[in-house]
């Protein structure tokens, strides 16, 4: 589904990614873990088009997308729930969700009817969002915003979902809830690439994992293999 080869990217003069490669097979959950500053978020942004890689390719379903603007990549079936969630603060919860399905809905009128089914599915997954459907997204708590960001990504009926640091800034209890949701989505067959600084949580839900260090993949393997790997631990705590 997604093949990233030899990706080089950065901001200005600093090259954060120094030849990263990874693969996500359809129907699986792949985790990308590593210390902060290793380049995980930069990888996500390079995949979804928010930044342009200086070298390397990104293939989505065999189609090269590394030079396309993010709106085009989104319309090809990629949904990115970005780091920091980035919900549309002044808009309501329901509006945020509807916008998630932008590529699928009629632009002017009739979109609410068309999206009703998808909305119901997301509300079933996140009942708390249904309660707050008219509330301004900017006033939701961190955990609720994360649910909204995931829900928004789901509304696009994506082929591939990128989840960037869903646990960031959230209390442990909420983090557990978020990962329960990710587990549910996995059971429904969603293909996901998950970037997390909480390695244990990510490894628990992933089918395969990559460990990033200084802009490159240092180690890869199944979660079981990685748990036994000393280098993984070293990549986190010095």
């Amino acid at each position, binding site marked *: 589904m997604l093949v990233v080869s030899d990706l080089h990217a950065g901001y200005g003069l600093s090259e954060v990614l120094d030849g990263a490669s990874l693969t996500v097979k359809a129907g699986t959950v792949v985790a990308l873990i590593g210390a902060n500053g290793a380049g995980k978020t930069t990888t996500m942004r390079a995949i*979804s088009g928010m930044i342009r890689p200086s070298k390397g390719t990104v293939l989505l379903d065999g189609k090269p997308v590394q030079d396309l*603007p993010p*709106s085009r990549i*989104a319309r090809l079936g990629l949904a990115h729930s*970005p780091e920091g969630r*980035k919900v549309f603060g002044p808009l309501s919860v329901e*509006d945020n969700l509807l916008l998630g399905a932008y590529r699928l809905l009629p632009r002017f009128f009739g979109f609410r009817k068309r999206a009703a089914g998808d909305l119901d599915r997301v509300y079933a997954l996140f009942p708390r969002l249904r309660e707050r459907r008219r509330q301004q997204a900017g006033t939701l708590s961190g955990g609720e915003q994360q649910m909204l960001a995931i829900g*928004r990504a789901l509304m696009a009926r994506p082929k591939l979902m990128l989840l960037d640091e869903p646990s960031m800034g959230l209390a442990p209890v909420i983090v557990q809830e978020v990962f329960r949701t990710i587990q549910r989505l996995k059971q429904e067959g969603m293909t996901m690439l998950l970037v997390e600084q909480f390695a244990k949580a990510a490894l628990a839900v992933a089918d395969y994992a990559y460990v990033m260090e200084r802009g490159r993949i240092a180690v890869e393997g199944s979660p079981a293999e990685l748990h036994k790997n000393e280098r993984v631990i070293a990549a986190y705590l010095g």
Partner: protein
Amino acid sequence: MTLSILAQLAVSGALIGLVYALIAYGFQLTFATSKSINFGQGELVMVSASFTLTLITLGLPYWVVVPAGLLFGAALGLFVERAAVRLALEQKSEGWILLTIILGLFLFSVAENVWGRDDRPFPTPISSEPIHFLGVDVTPVELSVAVGVFAVMGLIEVFKRQTLLGKAFEAISADRDAGELMGISATHTVMLSYALSGMVAALAGILVSPITTVGPTMASAMILKAFSVAVVAGLESGFGVVVIGMFLGALESIASYSLGSGWREAPGLLLLILALAVRPTGVFGKAIIRKV
């Protein structure tokens, strides 16, 4: 000055002030999506009004002329976006300030030569017989200004809230990157905002022309007032521009009567400089958080 004169001046002034508010509203639309405004907006008002007048003199009926004028304004807005704004936005510079000024100057010159330098009257089917209302005389033409302004602002607000495209517009204004991730093209949204802004400017011209006549300099003075309103009200509050616009219009009208018509401009300009000094983000606007 008696109270009735004061009231009369205030009301007439406030109705004209609504035109400033409308132009300022146009600024808000483009600022929301792209953090830029068209410094040549006055010329857009003037050229659209002149074009509309030409259509009228060609004998076309009003129900054709007005929409045509509005579409023309929208097209001009798109032209401004493409020629003067997009390059600067791509380069993340503020070059659009100078470029929109230049474009405005160019349009002024074209208008001078195509339509001449004289002010021409704008015939309107609406009567100029004043209606007496609560001790104040208001003409239907002046009232039409209020109707037009509120109607168009209302329609655009409905568009923003009720259509998906309108919500996408708000989304890009709130967070451009996140909007792109949803598949919304930021560039197209900016184009839309400029088209709407141009249309709004055209409407302002059409509404005010029966009162002020049409000529190359018709909007030069108005535009500074609109800037004052936009800056004082902040570039983010729709309600604020209406209030400030009416207030400014009333103030000007009174100043013009008491100090002499040449001083008409002064309150607005002074207000602008003072307001900028005291609260740069405007009275209704929000404070900016810097990112490092």
